[in-house]
């Protein structure tokens, strides 16, 4: 099958890793994937095409309004591909009633100029099929398709046993704890987590937050009164937290492999809707202990029951101390989760599922 993906690409956010993985496995499975648009030199991993009629299906990967291409491309795309052969993957739950969770939301007019009904109406007019990366879509007219996946061949240090993994992991690392992700709707969780590890942060090693807007609340958020990019620089300073700019997706596994503990945070909205992200899978290929800070039911539904030791307890400090004392137990869990992900969530598996969905 020939699939044309439509997405605004960025090297350090949204679905770039997922799109690259699909491109990689498509050839192996006898399919063809290209990103709609002119060749972008920043993305040598990807094929690009403007030849709409040459493709069977157009897949819109939507996070924000600008994921729909500019003129003239959008017009030629929509006029060249009938609605019945267009699909939307709604990565952030836009195709739902308006939902507020803490400061998080799926629609906010002052943020992007669109009310909730506009998202609904636009999605309904653009495509016959709408998929969301959740096991539990709320609307009857949405299909479940997890979209993101796991790359077993991308594991940074493949190991045969938990003991071997522990040995690798126990070598010197630059950071004790690091979170890679932009400061968007995550501060409440990050603050709570950092507060909990505060008493043992010297023991853990350096802490880092890597991504945009961790240094301070951005001006646009202040001007617009948006709370989703809150941050407390003084609090971070007290814990000697290092903040760094976003890193390209290709550097993420290597970066996390130089980190002892890597929390996986998701936006409150995503946790509420059960939406998965690339980070839920990608963190497991790094030589790091993932701290799975997503709701237990979502975690178990994706990772299997073996993930339990990697889910936080009420006493985060004690939990991490135990990991330091007895890492092999946790690496047992990680390796079991990796097996589960390989079987159930590999990109080969995911693309096969997508082709099956599209063929229906």
């Amino acid at each position, binding site marked *: 099958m020939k699939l044309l993906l439509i997405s605004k690409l960025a090297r350090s956010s949204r679905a770039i890793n997922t799109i690259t993985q699909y491109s990689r496995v498509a050839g192996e499975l006898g399919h063809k994937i290209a990103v709609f648009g002119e060749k972008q030199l920043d993305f040598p991993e990807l094929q690009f095409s403007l030849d709409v009629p040459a493709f069977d299906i157009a897949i819109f990967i939507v996070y924000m*309004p600008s994921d*729909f*291409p500019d*003129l003239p491309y959008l*017009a030629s795309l929509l*006029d060249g591909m009938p*609605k019945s052969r267009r699909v939307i993957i709604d990565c952030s739950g836009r195709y739902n009633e308006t939902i507020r969770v803490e400061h998080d939301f799926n629609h906010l007019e002052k943020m992007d100029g669109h009310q909730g009904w506009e998202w609904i*109406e*636009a999605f309904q007019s653009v495509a016959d099929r709408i998929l969301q990366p959740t096991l539990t879509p709320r609307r009857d007219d949405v299909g479940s398709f997890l979209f993101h996946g796991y790359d077993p061949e991308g594991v940074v240090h493949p190991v045969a046993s938990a003991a071997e993994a522990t040995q690798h992991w126990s070598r010197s690392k630059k950071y004790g704890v690091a979170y890679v992700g932009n400061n968007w709707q995550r501060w409440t969780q990050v603050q709570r987590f950092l507060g909990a590890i505060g008493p043992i942060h010297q023991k853990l090693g350096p802490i880092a937050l890597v991504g945009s807007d961790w240094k301070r609340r951005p001006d646009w958020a202040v001007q617009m009164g948006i709370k989703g990019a809150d941050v407390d620089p003084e609090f971070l300073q007290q814990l000697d937290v290092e903040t760094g700019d976003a890193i390209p997706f290709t550097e993420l596994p290597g970066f996390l492999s130089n980190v002892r503990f890597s929390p996986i945070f998701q936006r409150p909205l995503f946790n509420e809707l059960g939406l998965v992200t690339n980070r839920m899978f990608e963190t497991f290929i790094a030589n790091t202990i993932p701290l799975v800070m997503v709701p237990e039911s979502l975690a178990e539904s994706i990772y299997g029951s073996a993930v339990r030791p990697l889910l936080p307890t009420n006493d985060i400090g004690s939990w991490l101390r135990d990991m330091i004392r007895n890492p092999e137990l946790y690496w047992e869990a990680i390796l079991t989760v990796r097996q589960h992900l390989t079987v159930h969530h590999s990109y080969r598996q995911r693309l096969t599922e997508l082709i099956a969905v599209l063929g229906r």
Partner: protein
Amino acid sequence: MHTPVNILFVMERRVNAGSIQALANYIQLGKKIGHTLAVYGNPDPQLSEIYFSNEVHLFDYVVFIFESKLHWVSGLQLAHLLTIVPRSRRVILDADGMYNPVIALDGYDRNHASERDRQRWVSSYEALADRIVQPTLWPCQSRVQSLLFYGYDSRGRAVQTSWHAKRVDIMHVGHNWWRWREVSERLLPAIERIRGAFGDICFVGLWWDAPPVWAAAIGQDAAFSVNSQRLRELGIRVLPAVPYRDVISTMSKARINIMTQRPLFRRLGLVTSKYFEIFSADTLPLIMIEPEHAERIYGPSGRDLVLHDDIASKLVDVLERPKKYHEVVQAVRRHLTTHHSYERRLHELIEMLDGHQPAVKAG
């Protein structure tokens, strides 16, 4: 009895610039005679007179109005519009003459910064719609139709007040966008020579005090070039822009209003709302366009209102013999009522949409 036609305009919302005044007229008139005309989108408290609609499926045609920006419509909205409205029912009004070769005038005004930029506009238009219209009597491209679009609202004329009661002698309403060269090289030297004969002179609009901070970032320093010191030295007051609904009443505060137009528009013969608004105001309009073009739009009397060769003498003559010029203005207004009313313009628009050549005549 005519068949009702429903037309949806998709345009960038600007309360003090562009085509919004024309839209207000079209909407009001359509309502009166049984057509539905609306602007796409949610109601906007700043534009309370404008009827907005999101119910794209209720409209027979969608007219995209492009001015100086190409990417003002959100991808989400555009995706919705393009799916619901087939290409055959989409039309582009190319208000700023972007669907043309690159035109650069004296190394100053231009429609495109580069051939690449032009390509982007042309391919966008061609991808979007089969039909492109321009508000000029002589489009340069064979596939572009002429549709003047902007018109004269005789019922919207300001109440006449005493010439002597007006506190402002000369007013210029318009933004400083590609206008400084003409203003500084032709108008200001003339004013300088006869400054003592006039009282208050005002420039109303954006960027006469300073260029916007973002001008350089978008590569448009030249478009906003200004010497505000020179204006101050000539005792010319600069006042902020007014919303479209206040343009006519603002102009009516002055005895004389001067209309300038950017060189590109003059070259392409593009008309704007201002061409007609200035004749709805209670003022003596003087227009800085080519006399031939003035005659084509305003009729033979239009030539008498052109500031062309000896601008200073003309200004003094108008001040000294207002009665004569009021009669000229009345003749132009009669011409505009006959040839450029919004009733006529709406008829031309509907004819064009229905597939006929618009019956635009210069009169």
